[in-house]
């Protein structure tokens, strides 16, 4: 029983990272209409840059984490300025942004590979908080605690930001029709850039937490997140970030429990099995708000 409770905590912590990633991914999909496959590389670069600062430059872990998150956000803004904005201006349809995002994915992934090399690295032991915390009978790692706390904070803040603030109504107006939004006084350009920054920065946060939790930094870090995040968005929908976040947590729990009680080799296969099942059985999404193509 204690083992189960412990594994549940581990699963929720892992799932929190997936959920964070899914929130950024869903934000871009819902508000900008872009399926951004480069989103995983934002997480990778968030982790890589913060790791580099800690390990090579001796920067304090917390500051490095903040810089890493901001750097990921900046990459998101750059992607939008250089690739998505010109396509938006030309009204290029829906394939063009996917293809552009694949281009960004290639660029950021191969640069990450060149930067990080083929090996995986870990944070210097002394530089990161690592002392387990006893809560009741459970042992919680600081990384796990941070992941769960970060998810709670981000979900709350982003939800309030989107639904209760002026910024949120600006975002909604722009995502429906940028031109009319401009007429009613919303700065469409700045709003979209803010969304791009926010989404990529959340990906960066997920990347930093993923690297910190596993104590494992590599250029492929974001790819695993991309798939889990995608699964969470497919199952949970992207209209409301809370749906994707909840499913992200569920995927983490499912993974940890299945590798504990079934088999560790196929823990990815189980996630994708669930994903495929949902796609086939309920193409409109669990919560039904996903629109079907009118084909």
């Amino acid at each position, binding site marked *: 029983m204690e083992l189960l409770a412990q594994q549940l905590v581990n699963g929720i912590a892992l799932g929190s990272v997936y959920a964070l990633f899914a929130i950024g991914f869903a934000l871009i*999909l819902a508000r900008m209409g872009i*399926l951004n*496959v480069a989103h995983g590389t934002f997480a990778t670069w968030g982790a890589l840059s913060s790791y580099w600062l800690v390990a090579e430059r001796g920067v304090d872990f917390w500051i490095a984490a903040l810089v890493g998150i901001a750097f990921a956000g900046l990459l998101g803004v750059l992607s939008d300025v*250089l*690739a998505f904005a*010109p*396509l938006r201006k*030309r*009204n*290029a349809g*829906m*394939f*063009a942004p*996917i*293809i*552009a995002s*694949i*281009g*960004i*994915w*290639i*660029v*950021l992934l*191969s*640069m990450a*590979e*060149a930067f990080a090399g083929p090996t995986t690295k870990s944070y210097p032991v002394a530089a990161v908080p690592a002392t387990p915390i006893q809560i009741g009978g459970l042992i919680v790692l600081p990384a796990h605690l941070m992941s769960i706390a970060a998810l709670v904070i981000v979900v709350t803040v982003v939800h309030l930001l989107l639904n209760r603030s002026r910024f949120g109504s600006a975002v909604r107006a722009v995502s429906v029709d940028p031109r009319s939004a401009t007429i009613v006084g919303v700065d469409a350009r700045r709003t979209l850039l803010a969304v791009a920054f926010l989404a990529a920065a959340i990906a960066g946060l997920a990347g930093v937490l993923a690297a910190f939790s596993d104590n494992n930094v590599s250029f492929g870090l974001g*790819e695993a997140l991309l*798939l889990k995040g*995608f*699964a969470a968005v*497919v199952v949970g929908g992207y209209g409301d970030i809370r749906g994707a976040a909840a499913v992200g947590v569920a995927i983490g729990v499912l993974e940890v429990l299945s590798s504990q009680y079934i088999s560790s*080799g*196929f823990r*990815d*296969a189980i996630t*994708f099995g669930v*994903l*495929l099942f949902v*796609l*086939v059985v309920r*193409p409109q999404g669990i919560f039904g708000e*996903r*629109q*079907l*193509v*009118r*084909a």
Partner: protein
Amino acid sequence: MSTTAWITTLQFAGVNALFALSIYATLWTGVLSLAPIFFGAVGAFTFGYLAGTVGLSPFLGLVLGVVLGAALGALTAALVIRLDSHYLAMATIAMVLIGRVLVVNLTELTGGAAGTLVPGELGTWLWLIGCLVVAGYVLARLAKSRFGMAADAVREDAAVAQTLGISPRRIQLVGFVISGAFGGAAGVMQASFLQYIGPDTFYTHLGFVTLAAVVLGGAFHWAGPIVGAIVFTILPELLKDVMGEYDRVVTGVLLVVIIIFVPRGLVDLRRVRLLRARSRQDPPRAGDDSARPTAPQEVTA
């Protein structure tokens, strides 16, 4: 670059062209799918396994690749065609990523992380060009057929195509079957040239390069992917001397630049026709894009 290196590069350009045609087959019907990489993996590993255990002949391996690919294409279509195009694209990318998980974990069949050896009898120019000619011929013949015109219509405006009695899903199913057949064949050919296949042979990198080839060459004519594959396989090789390990960065940047500035690719019949129309009519008349009503479509999803 030495002559042998050039020949190898050109051979991979040929295999990439086959993959690119496989991507084109679904794109023609308005579906962005990276599933061909997965079809190729299944064809190649099945071929490798059967050649190693029961001594399947290479030619039968190729036939098997085509049949298996086509069947998988139909199955994929049945599963994903209902999805919104974003989800559909992502689901096929997920197939590629899942393919690697399967290859690594099904050790008895695939050799796991170590990979497996494959006989190389098909790895000749004759077989390669033969496959490309057949694939190109099939697409060229279909271009103005009943299916081809319907595919064009579905891609350009699926809603209007429907009012002409065309069922987009049916057309897309056919596209997936053709895509599967080509992808399966491309996988077997790739395996024959490499004579070794592992978890990373049919992975994202191959998907990127072939998709980039289709986009560069043009996704609106069957010759586009072939031209694109040749350019896009040779270009990084040439750049390797200059760019070193950053050659892929150029691939990515090119992809973005092309989709922004030459969205219909190098082989673009529409541009040819537009130019012809302009040269034919000297007195300006409602001739260019600005004359085309661009009002938002009245029927939205």
